[in-house]
């Protein structure tokens, strides 16, 4: 355990092999830089995904649970989220949370980058939608994104693969939106609907959220990583980084990590790129204290870990008399509505939300949620109630924009540690009054559209507990070093050879899934590194 090994130095060390780390690794692989990525998880094997076995749904409650605190795999670290109404969800492996994500892949809106200017809330980003647009386009191309052009909620988005099938469910809810004359559009889905880049198309297996054995869902283990490996990027798995180190000038020199055998190892690097998520990144920085960075690395602003945004998620469900085959098809991709995305002060809150139509549940989840919500009894009447729900429900997520607040934060837990003795992150989070009002409004609107679509019964509640997938804002970007952690190029104000490329750098959260944006930012930041670095450093 005490043995310290020193592998050869590298030019670039990337910490984290998830959505952003993969995009960064691929983009830098076109240079002559030597690149190493360290990932605490391992390679997943699609042939072992739960949905290749009959009991797949049950594994959502054990080793494929969304919460690391329930999963408790060797690759996981515990997260103290006991005082937060929203539990943290993630997955630690090559591919990170894209292994379990639904593939819902909308972009931020132009207005998301200038909320202060437009609405007088939060802060403007130091970059614009226009600046990021080429990277959104490149990322869509690299990942493989399905959808349809002409969405009135966005500037033109081109080059999409044909959309995911709507199914009876999509047509039904689509008619509901049209009755109300509300915006709706086929989901932007990181799921390929045609053979694409040596991958086969989606065949509507359904269980996207426990990994896609078909390889149609664009998790980065099958998009960016194979290309990065081909170009020479090295990846070490089961390596958990404990600390980024600095020299006497306070510049990054590399990182200590624990390898699979628990050996403490030092990796020297000329540039360090952190891509550990909005929780993992501040945890690492806060744990990287030194004489020159006594409050944690890159934390002279005191903002590392602050301004945590989680997207409180509301859930609406409509029950229909007709069988909609709703349990079939990509779980998280069908239709989205951004009717209430842009600010309308008359609604009683700032900013807005996306209504994200979900497919119905599988048999087990129908039964479990039905019993939990008292829609299916145990005992007499169980089967009849089950039959009235299975295949006949439409779900909807209300993705509420969370505004940044200093008190919402990630800190280091004083007692809890991971298997390597590294302090666990603690989540200090409360819903703001603005988020509460927006959530209540969104739930009511969700029920309204379900009824318009013909639902005989509806339920709505939120925030849903273990839905904290979207971890943003904890190392925000900005031009002022007093009010941000990194500059507009993801470069730490305090440590010039330290970059952060994940959603920690988000200034605001928008009301959409962040994967598309955080990957585009990783491409944009690494383009800056490429432009300012020639050959070996």
């Amino acid at each position: 355990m005490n043995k310290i090994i020193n592998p050869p130095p590298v030019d670039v060390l990337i910490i984290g092999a998830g959505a952003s780390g993969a995009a960064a690794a691929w983009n830098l692989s076109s240079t002559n830089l030597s690149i190493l990525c360290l990932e605490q998880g391992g390679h997943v094997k699609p042939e072992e995904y739960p949905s290749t076995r009959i009991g797949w749904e049950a594994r959502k409650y054990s080793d494929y649970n969304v919460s690391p605190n329930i999963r408790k795999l060797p690759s996981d670290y515990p997260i103290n989220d006991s005082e937060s109404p929203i539990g943290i969800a993630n997955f630690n492996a090559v591919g990170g949370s894209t292994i379990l994500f639904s593939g819902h892949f909308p972009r931020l809106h132009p207005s998301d980058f200038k909320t202060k200017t437009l609405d007088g809330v939060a802060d403007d980003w130091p970059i614009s939608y226009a600046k990021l647009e080429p990277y959104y386009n490149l990322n869509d191309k690299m990942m493989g994104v399905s959808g349809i052009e002409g969405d009135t909620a966005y500037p033109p988005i081109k080059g999409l693969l044909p959309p995911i099938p709507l199914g009876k469910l999509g047509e039904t809810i689509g008619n509901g939106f049209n009755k109300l004359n509300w915006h709706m559009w086929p989901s932007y889905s990181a799921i390929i609907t045609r053979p694409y880049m040596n991958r086969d198309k989606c065949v509507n297996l359904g269980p996207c959220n426990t990994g896609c054995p078909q390889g149609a869902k664009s998790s980065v283990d099958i998009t960016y990583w194979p290309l990065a490996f081909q170009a020479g990027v090295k990846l070490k798995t089961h390596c958990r980084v404990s600390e980024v180190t600095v020299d006497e000038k306070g510049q990054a020199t590399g990182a200590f990590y624990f390898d699979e055998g628990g050996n403490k190892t030092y990796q020297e690097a000329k540039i360090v790129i952190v891509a550990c998520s909005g929780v993992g990144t501040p945890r690492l920085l806060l744990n990287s204290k030194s004489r020159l960075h006594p409050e944690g690395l890159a934390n002279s602003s005191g903002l590392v870990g602050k301004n945590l945004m989680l997207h409180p998620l509301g859930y609406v469900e409509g029950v229909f008399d007709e069988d909609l085959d709703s349990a079939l098809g990509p779980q998280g991709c069908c239709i989205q509505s951004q009717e209430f995305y842009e600010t309308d002060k008359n609604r009683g809150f700032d900013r807005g939300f996306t209504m994200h139509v979900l497919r119905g549940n599988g048999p087990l989840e129908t039964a479990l949620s039905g019993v939990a919500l008292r829609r299916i009894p145990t005992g007499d009447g169980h089967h009849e109630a089950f039959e009235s729900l299975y295949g006949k429900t439409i779900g909807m997520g209300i993705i509420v924009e969370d505004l940044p607040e200093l008190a919402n934060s990630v800190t280091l837990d004083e007692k809890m540690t991971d298997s390597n003795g590294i302090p666990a992150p603690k989540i200090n989070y409360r819903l703001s009054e603005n988020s509460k009002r927006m959530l209540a409004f969104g739930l009511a609107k969700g029920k309204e559209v379900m009824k318009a679509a013909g639902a005989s019964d509806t339920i709505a509640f939120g925030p849903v507990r273990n839905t904290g997938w979207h971890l943003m804002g904890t190392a925000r970007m900005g031009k002022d070093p007093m009010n941000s952690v990194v500059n507009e190029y993801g470069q730490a104000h305090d440590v010039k050879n330290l970059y952060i490329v994940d959603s920690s750098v988000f200034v605001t959260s928008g009301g959409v899934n962040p994967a598309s944006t955080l990957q585009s930012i990783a491409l944009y930041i690494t383009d800056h590194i490429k432009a300012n670095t020639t050959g070996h450093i």
Partner: protein
Amino acid sequence: MNLRVPSIKMFDASEISTLKELFDYVIPATLNNGMPGASFLFDFEVNFSASDVLLFKKVLTQISDFSKTKYEKEYVKLSIIDKQIILKTLKQKSNRSFNELAFGIMRHYYTNNTILEAIGVKSRPPFPDGNSILEGDMLLFEQVYEKGQIYRD
């Protein structure tokens, strides 16, 4: 009784009998659509987890205690009506245990191939042919398109 559930070897015949009644109390059989009660799981080599077994043991103890307190008899010696009263008592007074048990039973029941077939799940893992889904009417979006831009520049 020819039980083939490995973890069920942790229980004696009397306990298994009680568990079967308990399983059927949670998910009873129906005659009209032919769905079996959850005790049918005992006909399969269901691999109950260690935590399932612990939970079953705990609930069996609670049932025994309720039975002795109310009737001064072992549960297995009660009439059918009295047994139902005891199981109802369990549900009411040990709500947490009962719910954990019910959820555990449902996890096995609704991932059983026979049950999935019975409820009409045509395509089951490993989904050799995927699923056929209606493409849907894309003209539905014309109304939205005609309204024009809603985002702010």
